[in-house]
């Protein structure tokens, strides 16, 4: 049984990883006077899907949004501490936020395709980031992104149809394809399945499994079974604290912290 070193919130064995894809150190987030995240230090690696779990209002989504500076768009939000991507401080003044969000993509709770064709939903990002120089290049990117998103076979004959005409599950995979199209390194998913039925959910989970290793994936979920199914590392947040971070199997069979145990066994008041 591995013992967790809670002083750094790293998982034993991860020390062998030469460099973490993302690290956070002593991160605090405030909304005005209210502190939403308290002193969170965590490492995120390429090889693992990392799940953030916790009750509503625990700060897990807030924390996820610090990882690509989505909180910048909230006027009252203030972030302190250090967050790095490949060792580079993402809150440094030299960091290009648009570029950062291409490298650290995001998929939201409600599928939000652009009111454009399926093709243009995927092609939009590569176009504005200058990843394609010709129509042929763009076609290749659209096809490979839709294939990786597990959607190609379902939409290849109707790429000109509106993205919003797809089913909810297909729309969500389209959004994942859109994030993939700009060649991100990290994909953040904020409750990606909460608006989907179980079959569409299973397809997203299968997709997460297929994408693992190619991208560092962080998923926020209310569904503990989903966290158990898709992730290799799980972080439990409660009232802005990172209570426990560890190997998913350990968290769900033998959590160290009482608060984690009470939450995952359904004893949370």
């Amino acid at each position, binding site marked *: *049984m591995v013992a967790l070193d809670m002083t750094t919130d790293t998982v034993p064995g991860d020390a062998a990883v030469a460099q973490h894809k993302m690290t956070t150190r002593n991160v605090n987030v405030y909304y005005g006077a209210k502190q939403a995240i308290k002193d969170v230090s965590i490492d995120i690696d390429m090889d693992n899907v990392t799940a953030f779990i916790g009750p509503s209002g625990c700060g897990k989504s807030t924390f996820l949004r610090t990882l690509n500076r989505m909180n910048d768009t909230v006027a009252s939000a203030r972030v302190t501490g250090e967050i790095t991507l490949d060792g580079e401080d993402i809150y440094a003044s030299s960091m290009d936020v648009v570029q950062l969000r291409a490298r650290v993509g995001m998929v939201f709770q409600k599928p939000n395709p652009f009111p454009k064709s399926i093709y243009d939903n995927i092609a939009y990002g590569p176009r504005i980031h200058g990843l394609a120089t010709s129509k042929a290049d763009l076609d290749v990117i659209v096809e490979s992104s839709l294939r990786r998103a597990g959607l190609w076979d379902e939409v290849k004959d109707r790429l000109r149809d509106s993205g919003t005409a797809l089913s909810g599950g297909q729309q969500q995979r389209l959004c994942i394809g859109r994030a993939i199209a700009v060649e991100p390194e990290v994909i953040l998913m904020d409750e990606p399945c909460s608006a989907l039925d179980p079959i569409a959910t299973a397809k997203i989970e299968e997709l997460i499994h297929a994408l693992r290793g190619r991208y560092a994936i962080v998923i926020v979920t209310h569904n*503990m*079974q989903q966290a*158990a199914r898709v992730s290799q590392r799980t972080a439990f947040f409660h009232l802005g604290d990172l209570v426990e971070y560890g190997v998913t199997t350990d968290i*769900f*069979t*033998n*959590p160290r912290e*009482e608060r*984690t*145990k*009470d939450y*995952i*066994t*359904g*004893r*949370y*008041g």
Partner: protein
Amino acid sequence: MAEQHTVSAFDDEINRLRGLVAEMGGRVELALDEAMQALVKQEPGLAERVIEGDLRVDALEAEVEKLVVQIIALRAPMANDLREVIAALKIVGVIERIGDYAKNIAKRSRQISGHRTIEPISLLPSMAQIAGEMVHDALDAFATRNAVLASAVIERDVLVDNFYNSIFRTLVTYMVENPKTISECAHLLFVAKNIERIGDHATNVAEMVYYAATGEYLPERDRAALAEG
């Protein structure tokens, strides 16, 4: 920690599960006790009761299996809940075996009653008492999720083993000295072996309880010692 689940029906099911395991445990403890009395006091009526009572033990095992499948399917238990439910499933399989050993002792008591020629039996009740206490304490440890009590059960298994070795030597001596006693001694040897196995099974239960209570396996040393058993 909060003892109650938010979903109280889950608590009801867990409590029912604990109740069934406790009832099963109580029944096999009694069965062992009565089987030994049947043997020592040569009371065939008691032996019959043990044999019939084993049917109820088997039925309880089936009931626990069904309930565990239901809990896993409907409640998706996690962490200590999951460990407890899995432990219950494994423990009732072991208790059922203990019940079978008690039944076997009862059957043998019928076969040798009436033509008793030797009196090596004095050691057997003492041995059975320790094994019975081990079963009792292992199930107590399960009911109270007490890892310390579970560990104490495991340590006592060596006493049962020592009894077995002593009884084995005594009975072999009898058989060598007086071949007329061979049939009876063979039965008694099986009785001793059955009790020895009950001690081993109580140890297994205690190990499962330890895991359910702590999430940790017992140190390898103890498990290796058991394997030699």
